[in-house]
């Protein structure tokens, strides 16, 4: 039996598990990753660098009541920018995201409850 006929036993790819891909995104995907020009990633890095600079200025400039929300907001934006664009979770399978966000969500829930138990926020 040739390799070609053996291949007939392999299930059709589309009949398998729903990988949760956006079909529009798949069209522009090769090898599971979209081809982006380097400048796309450089622009994101510049955005992240600006946010880091803004974060650092909070150490010297008094932002008053906006200090903590602004700092936490910038942290969250930076975190998800790296996860979605550099780690490609925005375009990759939803299953990968589910695995990661489950761990992240579990960690946040457990440790927020732990800090509440120790009256950290009081």
């Amino acid at each position, binding site marked *: 039996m040739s390799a*070609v006929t053996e291949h*007939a036993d392999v*299930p059709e790819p589309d009949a398998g598990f729903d990988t949760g891909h956006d079909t529009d995104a798949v069209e522009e995907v090769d*090898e599971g*990753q979209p081809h982006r020009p380097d400048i796309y990633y450089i622009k994101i890095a510049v955005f*992240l660098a600006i946010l880091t600079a803004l974060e650092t200025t909070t150490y010297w400039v008094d932002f008053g009541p906006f200090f903590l929300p602004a700092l936490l907001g910038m942290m969250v934006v930076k975190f998800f920018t790296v996860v979605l664009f550099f780690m490609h979770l925005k375009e990759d399978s939803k299953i990968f995201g589910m695995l990661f966000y489950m761990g992240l969500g579990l960690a946040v829930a457990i440790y927020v409850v732990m800090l509440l138990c120790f009256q950290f926020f009081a």
Partner: protein
Amino acid sequence: MADIAVDPTSEHVADHVGEPHVAHHDHLHTSTGLSNNKLAMWLFLGSECLLFGGLIATYMLYRGRNNGKPGPDQLWDIPLTSVSAFVLLMSSLTMVLAVSAAHAHDDRRTTIWLSVTGLLGATFVGAQVYEFTSFYHEGVGFTTSLFSSSFFTLTGFHGAHVTIGIIMLMALAGLISRDKIHGNKAEVVELVGLYWHFVDIVWIIIFTLVYLIPA
């Protein structure tokens, strides 16, 4: 069994007969249609969130317990830490450029970007070693207080992760330059990239919660 007319040049056939450098689409011949290696890496990173979550939460609890010794507000060198944070952030850029080059089958650019990423990581670890040494000279060691123990454990664990990442990057650059990787080279680079970006996002949280928010 009836023969099925399959274009012998298609990637599915090439995949089946074990061509080493063929393109792999998302629909792999696994039960999920996805790469098991990537699934395992994302699962690992999800579990790492729990590890670092525990370390960060413990530090948050103990950061005010410095037994009259120098505490966070006296020790932190924010300009140095900001530069370190910037360096690690830029290493994420060079890493994603390495992944991009690997998908374009450009081994030379992949090796260069991996090496640059490793160098930026080494700069970050060097700054951390300098920071730890300066704290020690100011009388703050690992067992000085609950604050120092939780701080050194948290940042030390992160530094160890960065160091492991550097070893992986350098090993990968060496293997690619000698053409020692058979199979889906881009996926190997991508897996190391995911790990590297993870240590970056952990530092994004540490930088804000540990260094920028006063104790």
